[in-house]
């Protein structure tokens, strides 16, 4: 990849961000859902994260990146309220409804669970809603499949539908493309940006790969036990803190998934999925 194409990409991104900012203002839906002020979590004698300042606004995609053990999951746990901060403050709006796609969900064969039943795991939903949500992710044909039999890509799409059926204010995705082949990763990222466009919920995303940041991300927060740097993807990519943390190579390897608006979603299985007929 030569310098010119990177420059083109960044310009393209800047346009997209400008568009989103204008949309947000015109919709007048700005609302802070979660607000962290100098939040820290201490476990035993070790600080998992410290002094985290982070706001999550409605309709915004925030991506957390950072090396292993940098506190990405800890920050998502602070946002969901599963963890209470040892120091600092985490404020969440009243009755914040969260949809959660956890990291590494292994469901053993001992538990008989099909996709339809998984959809109602944490709350009751009508059959129509279940079908509708599964259709949104192109997985309605998997309704009666056992969850253990799904491919990585199918399972993540179903988990996304399960989180969305709750109509959450905040969608939390912890490494949503882990164990998913490349083509399905693209499809997943498309779905995620679709979801934001359709529902205007906030999305907190933990990136499975340091170097892969969604083009649709409004803000990247780079963690390493504390917030190293944050801002638009292109700002973070160019910041000295980011380069220091991930090295000069990271700059070249920072791939940014491009978003195309000309795609369609149907129930056709994605390439690479197991159940292609």
């Amino acid at each position, binding site marked *: 990849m030569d310098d010119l194409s990177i420059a083109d990409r960044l310009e393209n991104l800047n346009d997209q961000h400008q568009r989103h900012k204008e949309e947000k203002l015109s919709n007048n839906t700005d609302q802070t859902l979660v607000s962290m002020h100098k939040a820290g979590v201490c476990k035993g004698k070790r600080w998992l994260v410290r002094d985290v300042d982070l706001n999550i606004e409605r309709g915004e995609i925030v991506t957390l990146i950072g090396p292993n053990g940098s506190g990405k999951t800890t920050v998502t*746990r602070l946002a*969901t309220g599963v963890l209470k901060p040892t120091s600092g403050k985490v404020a969440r709006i009243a009755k914040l409804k969260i949809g959660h796609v956890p990291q590494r969900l292994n469901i053993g064969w001992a538990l*008989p669970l099909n996709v339809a039943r998984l959809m109602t795991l944490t709350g009751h939903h009508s059959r129509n809603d279940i079908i509708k949500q599964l259709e949104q992710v192109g997985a309605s044909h998997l309704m*009666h499949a056992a969850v253990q039999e799904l491919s990585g890509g199918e399972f993540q799409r179903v988990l996304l539908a399960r989180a969305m059926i709750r109509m959450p204010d905040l969608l939390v995705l912890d490494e949503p493309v882990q164990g998913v082949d490349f083509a399905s990763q693209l499809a997943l990222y498309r779905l995620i940006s679709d979801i934001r466009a359709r529902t205007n919920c906030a999305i907190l995303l933990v990136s499975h790969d340091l170097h892969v940041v969604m083009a649709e991300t409004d803000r990247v927060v780079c963690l390493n036990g504390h917030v190293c740097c944050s801002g638009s993807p292109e700002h973070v990519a160019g910041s000295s803190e980011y380069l220091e943390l991930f090295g000069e190579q990271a700059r070249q390897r920072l791939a940014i998934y491009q978003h195309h608006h000309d795609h369609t979603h149907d129930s056709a299985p994605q390439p690479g999925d197991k159940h292609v007929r």
Partner: protein
Amino acid sequence: MSDNSLFLALLGGVGLALVAGPLGCFVIWRRMAYFGDTMAHSALLGVALSVLFGIHMALGVFGVAILIAIALVILQRGETLSADAILGVLSHSTLALGLVLVALVPQLNIDLEQFLFGNIRGVGTMDIVVIYLGAAGIGGVLFRYWRTLLAATVNRELAEAEGLKPAWGNLVLMLLVATSVAIAMKLVGILLITSLLIIPAATARRLAVSPEQMAFFATIIGVLAVSGGLSGASVWGTPAGASIVVAALSLFLLSFLVPTQNLTDSWKDAQGEKTQ
């Protein structure tokens, strides 16, 4: 065996099977089988202590089981030993402590065999009351917290993030298993208690396509095993607890004859029909 004691045993056994089914499902899903064994092994210590202090046996067994559960939770915090190693320590040492205590204090006058293998002839009206009270408690808690416990079984963090409160789920299930051991001991005996939780649920797994279905089938299978086992025991004079387990085992083996509801195939077929 007189008709009356057979009737009482049946009544108690069915009450037990009604809740052992769904509870056993959780034991299987959350891999608590060894924990159940540990609870059961600690029961003899509970019996000895309750005779020593003159309290009701179920109460003594329940009390010791709770202490073991708490010890397990505390020892697990240490994070240096795996759960099964800790259970291995607790399981056999409580059984040994119980055996030594029974031998050391001759006035206890405990007929070991009756507790190890069960004694349905000794089942009285009071025992039936205890069984049904305990069963009602187990059933009530499982019914009330079914969604939370199930969601936490799939993924605790997910359940918690989405507003359920599964924090005490593990402890609650431990207490329920302890309760089931306390009320089942007299009927099936210490050594065979966990099988009543596990075998019906394991059999049901082969037939079920949803968690609720598995719990329901496990209940039915448990009731069949209890009635079949007790009838067999009265006809052939075999030990009641063991007969119940053998009946459960037969059902488990029979379930292999049922063609597996291979979900993939069935939904694939359905898809195929639609496209044709």
